[in-house]
């Protein structure tokens, strides 16, 4: 398992390769890249600043990946989340899951993203022409996370 939280950018291709290189049991790698958009709630976004709770961030991400590993048969997983000041087009988050078969890889990858969105201590502040504002949590994210219960 690889968990990385920091200001630096990442290379999705290198992360995907690291999840299967030399691992002939891996038949499937599902991955996700989240990016800064230049529009949110109808307003243009010029900067996105990510704050987090350093002592808790990696711990919570590790717990989310562990839970995915209890639910699905996965061989490895990587979660990378950037913090600090970003701009439209910048990468924010990478989640990759390696598995024998695609069903487990897809489900675990989406589960990790849904739980990360609702349980990992990150907060976004957008810079817009009207000034800065904290991004409000979306109820659709809570709904997405609730799907995995029961």
């Amino acid at each position, binding site marked *: 398992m690889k968990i990385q939280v920091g200001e630096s950018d990442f290379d999705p291709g290198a992360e995907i390769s690291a999840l299967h290189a030399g691992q002939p049991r891996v038949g499937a790698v599902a991955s996700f890249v989240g990016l800064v958009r230049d529009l949110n709630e109808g307003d243009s976004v010029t900067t996105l600043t990510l704050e987090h*709770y350093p*002592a*808790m961030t990696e711990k*919570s991400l590790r717990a989310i990946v562990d839970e995915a590993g209890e639910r699905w048969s996965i061989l490895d997983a990587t979660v990378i*989340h950037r913090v600090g000041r970003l701009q439209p087009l910048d990468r*924010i988050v990478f989640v990759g899951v390696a598995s024998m078969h695609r069903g487990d890889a897809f489900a675990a990858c989406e589960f990790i993203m849904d739980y990360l969105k*609702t349980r990992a201590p990150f907060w976004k502040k957008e810079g817009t022409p009207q000034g800065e504002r*904290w991004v*409000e949590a979306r109820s659709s994210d809570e709904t997405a996370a609730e799907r995995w219960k029961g």
Partner: protein
Amino acid sequence: MKVKVLYFAKLREKFGIENEVIELPGERAYAAAIVDLLRKRGEPWSTELALDSGNRMAVNQTLAGIVTPVQDGDEIAIFPPVTGG
């Protein structure tokens, strides 16, 4: 008992502090007791920490509820719903 309380995002900005140590009577308490105490400080605390504010808490870096027990030396974090990813 003394606990360290951390604030994040909008709460950190509204309160103008990142963290503080606060003292409560007794040896143990529910996490709710800390929020109750802070709310009594008046504005902006009472508004930002209103019961329907939707804020979340963590005790020792784990998501917690208002009935999570806390004790001397614990690290309590109070923050708005998370918006990472």
